[in-house]
């Protein structure tokens, strides 16, 4: 039941957080339990609200759960998964092959993904041009040292 996945997920988050809080080391300065108070309040807040959320969803259990349909429509799943993969590759390559090459690959990948292969000249121009513009803006104008 997809409908209950979110409330149950947050309830688990709340309980894990609560357990982690109760296992925090005691403070040597001041109140030994000082670091725990605020997190305990937060944990209770999350657990209680996700319980209420669960019951709200329980009341709707006979209705169709439509929220995730948007993701499945058209080419959206392809766009999302490919973008996430590209972002991860970018993270992996950024320091290894240097900013310029990594960025051209990343932007180029996104452009081909969204605009298709037919507009390959346009895609390549945008990817290369914006990689250089960004490099210039950050490395030269803002003096950020890029790998």
């Amino acid at each position, binding site marked *: 039941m997809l409908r209950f996945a*979110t409330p149950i997920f*947050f309830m688990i*988050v*709340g309980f894990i*957080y609560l357990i*982690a809080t109760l296992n*925090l*080391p005691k*403070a*040597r*300065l*001041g109140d030994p339990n*000082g*670091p725990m*108070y*605020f*997190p305990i309040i*937060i944990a209770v*807040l*999350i657990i209680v*609200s*996700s319980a*209420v*959320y669960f019951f*709200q969803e329980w009341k709707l259990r006979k209705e169709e759960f439509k*929220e*995730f349909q*948007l*993701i499945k*429509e*058209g*080419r*959206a799943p392809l*766009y*999302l998964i490919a*973008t*996430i993969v590209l*972002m*991860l590759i*970018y*993270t992996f390559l*950024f*320091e290894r092959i240097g900013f310029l090459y990594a*960025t051209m690959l*990343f*932007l180029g990948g*996104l*452009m081909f993904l*969204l*605009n298709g292969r037919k507009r390959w000249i346009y895609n390549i121009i*945008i990817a290369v041009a*914006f990689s250089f513009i*960004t490099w210039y803006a*950050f490395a030269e104008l*803002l*003096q*950020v040292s*890029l790998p």
Partner: protein
Amino acid sequence: MGIDMQYVIEGFMVAIQPQNLFWIALGGFLGTIVGMLPGLGPATAIALLIPITFGMDPTSALILMAAIYYGAMYGGSRSSILLNVPGDGSAIAATFDGYPMAQKGQAGQALAISAIASLIGGLVAVVGFILLSQPLAQFALKFGPAEYFMLMIFTLSAIVALAQGAMVKGFIAMGVGLLLSTIGIDLQTGVYRFTGGNVHLADGVDFLVVIIGIYAVGEVMYNYLTIDRPLGEKKNIGKIWITKEQWNRTKWPMLRNGPIGFLVGVLPGAGGAIASMISYSLEKQVSKKPEEFGEGAIEGLAAPESSNNAASVGAFIPMLTMGIPGSGTTAVILGAIVMLGLKPGPLLFENNPDMVWTFINSMFIGNIFLVILNIALVALLVRILDTPPKTLYPIILLLAFMGTYTLNFSMTDFVILIVFGLIGLVMKILQFPVAPLILAVIVGSEMEQNLRKSLVTHDSAWGLMTASPITIGLVILTIISLGYPLLTSWLKKRKLERSMGQ
């Protein structure tokens, strides 16, 4: 307490320094553009531009970010009027009468009146800012830890309560935000909390990365879902000016909705979106011809436009006088200026009156600049609406990564960015409000410090809540803000059941 003319003049002189004029113009221009683009709002624009503010002096950074904010209020209505697609929440009300006007061939007048209304709302609100900010800062000087803690509770609960129809989800979002703020070394005792042994997390999760992830990466991915849908046809603009009769019809609506929008903006939780809705329905109620509303009544466009811009100015008051942002956008701005070493709060007005006045004057200049920009260059601006989103979104993603990199030069932050982008996407899909999370991440640590400081003097939660008349007042306000939506939905339900029964 009067206004020291010397500071007013000095502030004006600083605000018209070439570099500050440049930031006003740049911010206003960028804000207008981002505001125009469907689905992207001021918070995204500011989150993306955070790296530019590094190395700037805090006053200029504040001027720039404020200009982006109210610039987005000007820009948001362009696409509402021409395409019937609001740029962001604040511009929804502009579609009600703005688009019908464009359909009747009055697009030029609609664009003109929305710029003029924004100007009037903005100027009224700047005057309101001058009148209200100093007394409020004076009042905030009386605040101790207990008062601050309760004020934060009230602000958070107001934000949650105003997340229409999604209070429970709002509480969960707020809880997650607070949870994130507790990661890292505990400031009072040095205990490591929830770092899982990762050295990078000892300083906590960088809230700016969270912001960029949710507002930039998350928003872009959410917009992917509808990227293949064709937009409506853009209307021809025609002559950009209004007639004498239109001015007479709109001058009072613009003037009276400025203060309304301003006050709504000052309140925690409510922003431009709510201000413009309130103004729209109010103007409809007082109108002699309410039947024209929705068919292209020019007052129906002028009122919310004046109001939402005024709200964006008002929203700076709680942030600057008390250090507590009342909305997602001001929370982002607060996060950015705190990074630059500025600490907003009541003392800012005592110690840096020059800065405050420079800021106020910059808003005057910025609003005048924007009305010129939006009327004279409107033909050029609307061409930006033709920029294909499929080119724009990859560039926004790249900027998000660059912004994140300049914060700590860390690849761990890239992973955090991607994770929060996904969280932002899922929250949007499941209709979780984002603002409570952002606000909680930013004020969470302050809130905990204030709670623990006040627990030293007041030994129980009850003692804390009844520490002073101010805390009692804030407790009552919190109860009202949380109880009111519950009450109205219950009353609605009962009314519905009764009418069903009959």
